């Protein structure tokens, strides 16, 4: 049991560091979901299945979706074929998204 918990803890920590280190914003959102998923596995190891179900449903599922939808609304992430209308925050090419993130981190 402790080996499973140890592996999951390492995965959670790596994903948490990845949230900060990744350049792609949607990748950071996915890493946040991975953290929640790992924590829910830890809850199962600690014999708390109700809490684990809630954490998996809300943290790994819903909160990731809410973050991704927020990114989409701000124009920082697009589905394939989104009509790229002129939104003031939207960079005109994909490469500028990293600059947008760096600028946002400054403020």
């Amino acid at each position, binding site marked *: 049991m402790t080996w499973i918990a140890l592996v999951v803890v390492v995965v959670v920590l790596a994903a948490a560091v990845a949230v900060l280190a990744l350049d792609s914003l949607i990748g950071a959102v996915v890493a946040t979901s991975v953290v929640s998923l790992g924590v829910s596995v830890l809850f199962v190891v600690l014999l708390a299945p109700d809490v684990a179900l809630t954490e998996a449903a809300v943290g790994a599922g*819903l909160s990731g979706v809410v973050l991704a*939808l927020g990114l989409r609304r701000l124009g920082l992430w697009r589905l394939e074929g989104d009509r790229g209308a002129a939104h*003031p925050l939207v960079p005109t090419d994909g490469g500028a998204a990293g600059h947008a993130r760096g600028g946002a981190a400054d403020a």
Partner: protein
Amino acid sequence: MHGGVPPMRNIASLVFSFGLAFLRLAIAAQLGFGHTPMIVGSGILTGAEADVGAANIVTAVVFGYRGFDTLGELSILFAAATAAGLVLGHRRLGAADDPEGGLILRAGADLLFPLLLLVGVYIVIHGHLTPGGGFQGGVILAAAFFVSVIAKPSLRLNHGAISVIEGLAGAAFILIGIWALVEDGSFLKPMLDQGVLGQLVSAGTMPLLSSAVGLKVGSELAGLLAHISESEAGEP
């Protein structure tokens, strides 16, 4: 990592995090792991079967011993969804013409919708027997509807029906509580025959409360997610 944050701020945050972790570890080391200093837990463990008749003691606490707190949680969810609806503004007129998801999303949504629906309803109805309950099942139901909406935006969610279901489910929860108040003197006291422990129809009003909460949470979150994805982009 990304540039722009001065290195001193990074170091200060790191020192703060380590200091906080050290403080929490020092406090936690004095408490035995798994031995709570409070005695309410063991009291509930011994008394839950006779009092409430539910096999899942966590649900017995959520809907039986602390049913009023669950009402507070429902109010919080309602307030949050209402506030989000107010802030988000109108739905875009062209929302139904949004691009469909890719092949994986569309095929996955077609496969997952019935499965998620079944799993969500199962978790809600068996809340008093297996781990789960109203909230967990409700979130899974919301995910079921939202996955199909985001895969094919032409299948617009009927927000009027969502509001009606949410309102009726919330009212049902409160009405069951008021009925318990009128009949027995305590708001949200577990009523109805407790039945045999472990049967689907057992634990009195608890499956009804769980279903009401599941419907309310599911419809609320599905409406909220659909609203976020359909709302117009405002000024920055």
